[in-house]
């Protein structure tokens, strides 16, 4: 399928200039480049503007509850590991409500790709502070300014043991597309934090803000070094884009002998002989 063919035909309702258009294009481009068929792809969406991605892709889709993307994706992938599972959620969805699931999804290292549209604000609900909102920002829910420290989600992921940690930017579509391709190809939990200005409710994090600070990691950067990665995610003033950390770890489905040959979908759902079980109760 060509990138265009991944359009669902539904007209997006994002604000003009929203980074989601770019992320949408990057996803479609990645799926096309990888020669994936939409029927073999499941997009799991969270709640928020990011979640609306679901409506615009010609793939299977699951629009779950707020914060609950990763458990859905885990259930889907373990049940039919032949499917390509992509997750789209926001910073509120994934780092607030879904923070617990994020840590545990990292522990499992299941072969799914997790895209977090990180705009440092709650857009859809009209501009409350998110877990990545800077201290001091005045928002509808924090009229005197945020007093909580912002979360550094990439540092959390690294320290939780993530095997693939990357950062993309909605202002760099081609670069983002390549990252998503790397993520899908990665055998394990591929986590990509995507910087994305909210053109309506975002204040500080504009395209100009990012354009002044971003730079792309190149071949001189060793992404297998944990120390390098930690330094990169704690950098001030500059913002590194690219694969920050990537190592090989046991992929989760491979640790389940039940699904070594066939998918769970293929092997279960049929009546079983339980005489051996019942014998043990005699």
């Amino acid at each position, binding site marked *: 399928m060509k990138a265009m063919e991944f359009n669902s035909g539904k007209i997006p309702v994002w604000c003009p200039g929203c980074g989601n258009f770019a992320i949408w294009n990057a996803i479609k481009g990645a799926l096309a480049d990888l020669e994936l068929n939409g029927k073999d792809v499941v997009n799991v969406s969270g709640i928020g503007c990011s979640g609306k991605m679901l409506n615009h892709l010609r793939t299977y889709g699951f629009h779950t509850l707020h914060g609950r993307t990763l*458990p859905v994706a885990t259930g889907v992938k373990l049940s039919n590991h032949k499917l390509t599972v992509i997750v789209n959620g926001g910073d509120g969805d994934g780092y607030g409500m879904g923070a617990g699931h994020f840590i545990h999804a990292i522990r499992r290292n299941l072969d799914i790709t997790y895209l977090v549209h990180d705009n440092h604000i709650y857009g859809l609900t009209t501009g409350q502070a998110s877990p990545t909102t800077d201290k001091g920002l005045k928002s509808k829910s924090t009229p005197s300014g945020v007093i909580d420290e912002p979360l550094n989600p990439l540092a959390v992921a690294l320290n939780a043991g993530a095997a693939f940690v990357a950062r993309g930017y909605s202002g760099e579509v081609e670069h983002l597309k390549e990252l998503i391709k790397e993520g899908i190809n990665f055998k394990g939990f591929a986590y990509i934090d995507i910087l994305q200005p909210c053109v309506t409710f975002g204040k500080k994090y504009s395209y100009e803000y990012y354009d002044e600070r971003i730079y792309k990691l190149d071949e001189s950067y060793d992404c297998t070094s944990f120390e390098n990665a930690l330094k990169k995610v704690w950098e001030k003033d500059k913002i590194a884009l690219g694969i920050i950390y990537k190592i090989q770890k046991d992929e989760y489905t491979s640790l*389940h002998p039940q699904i070594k040959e066939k998918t769970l979908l293929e092997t279960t759902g049929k009546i079983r002989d339980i005489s051996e079980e019942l014998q043990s109760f005699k």
Partner: protein
Amino acid sequence: MTVLTWKIGGPAGFGIMSAGPMFAKALKRSGYSVQGYPEYPSIIRGGYNCYHITFSNESVFSVYKRCDILVALDKVVFDNEDITENMTVIADFDSIKLSEDIVCKKIHIPIKNILKENDFPDIVKNSIALGASAKLLGVDENIVFKLFEESFPAKVVNMNIEAAKKGMQYCENVIQNNFKPDDKVKDYLVMTGNEAIATGAIKAGVGFYSTYPMTPASSILHYLAGVAEKYGIIVKHTEDEIAGIIMAIGASYAGVRAMTGTSGGGLSLMTEGVGLAAMIETPLVIALSQRPGPATGMPTWTEQSDLKFVMNISQDEFVRIVLTPGDLKELFVMTFEAFNLADKYQVPVFVLTDKFLSESHFCVDNLEYDGLEIDRGYIFEGDESKPMDFFPRYKEFKNGVAMRVNPGTPGGLFKAPGNEHDDFGFVATDSKTRIKNQERRFRKENYIKDELPLPKLYGNENAEITFVCWGSTKLPLMEALKFTEKFNFIHFSAVNPINWEDVKNIFKGKKLVAIETNFTGQLASIIAEKTGIVIEDKFLKYDGRPFFVEEILDFVERGR
């Protein structure tokens, strides 16, 4: 129509919970029908654990308050049990000094000395006591030794056999009973309610079970985890109950038969997930083992207090199936059928149990039935000619039900949204669509009703009073029925959705008394809502214990 009761007690950590069920099995293998009931606190060491067995040569359904033979492994037993004159008490009376006013038939076994002389570790106390009990009740010692072989690591089997033999030396066969062992019973099964649920799920082809441990539902998780690889099931202990239910919904969406199980507190966390499953019409089976609450409540005790919770769980209104099985057979068959109902009607299906039913042991002749068949409902098989087309997954196919599609199917693309949606799963909020969907989804009830069992009358049709019960309360009533014809009872093995007009007919001309282990009479309240029949008389218990047989007989005699 007699039973004997035996109980073993001691602090947590003494192995009461393995010795008790083992002795229940020994009695069953001797040809007696048994019922075993554990009581224990939520701690690892100390406190007071006990396991109570009722047995007879006739079918035994439930637990008595009475204890005929008490095995007291520690002084703590005497602080927790009412010792009566007629009680036979097996204990080390050298170590446990009793005040003079405690009178009972003592059987002294110098457990402490036996341990010391033979250099046995403390843990074999149980085996000494089981040896003594076997001798006392005429259980063939080889049955006990065989159970040791089956249950203990090989290297300690002989030590336990030696210990049991020592116990036997101090016991004559003194308890006379007129029970004639029944050879048929020797081949029966002794299992817990949760084991019946787990085996029912295995039979039904369950593929995915995910949850967070919570007493008294945890043993379903443990059982399935133990056989997961053998049967090719994926069993997950998730980070919390929210992930537990949502992961199961993900698995079900992918086409796999999925289930979760928990107790009330866990279900509180799962609440949003139940609504999600309903909205995206993804099949889901939920086993709920109730315990007293709210909050942490009494984790290891029993109550039937979550019926109205599941009847109304999650925001707004949607169809849910509520099954309330009352014994092992019903648990097994209804868990099996729960998967069929979930697949056919694409709604959440609850299988309710409680600590008493979940964790007690009961006797059953067999659970292998002919005629159990799997029905996965309507599934779209795909259209290769237009593989990338969207499919009207939420368009009515039949009886309010639409066709399911497993992701990966060509031409079956759709969105499964928590939002209200159009036929293809795209968000829709127009009034026409909303009305159409609500009416279609609720239309399923008309067809489910005809598949669910109506409440059933047990006992003499013309009895003076008719108890109305659901779930596990069936069991003490079955047991009490052996002694009197003054009452009969109506048992609901399913509560929603059922044909309430038929229920009215079943109730006709009867003096109804609601009997439930909760404070308000939840089924009675639902009956009033659905039929307008208000049951004024209620026999309710809410102390964390099931109804004991004596309590029901007292109530019937008093006539209230």
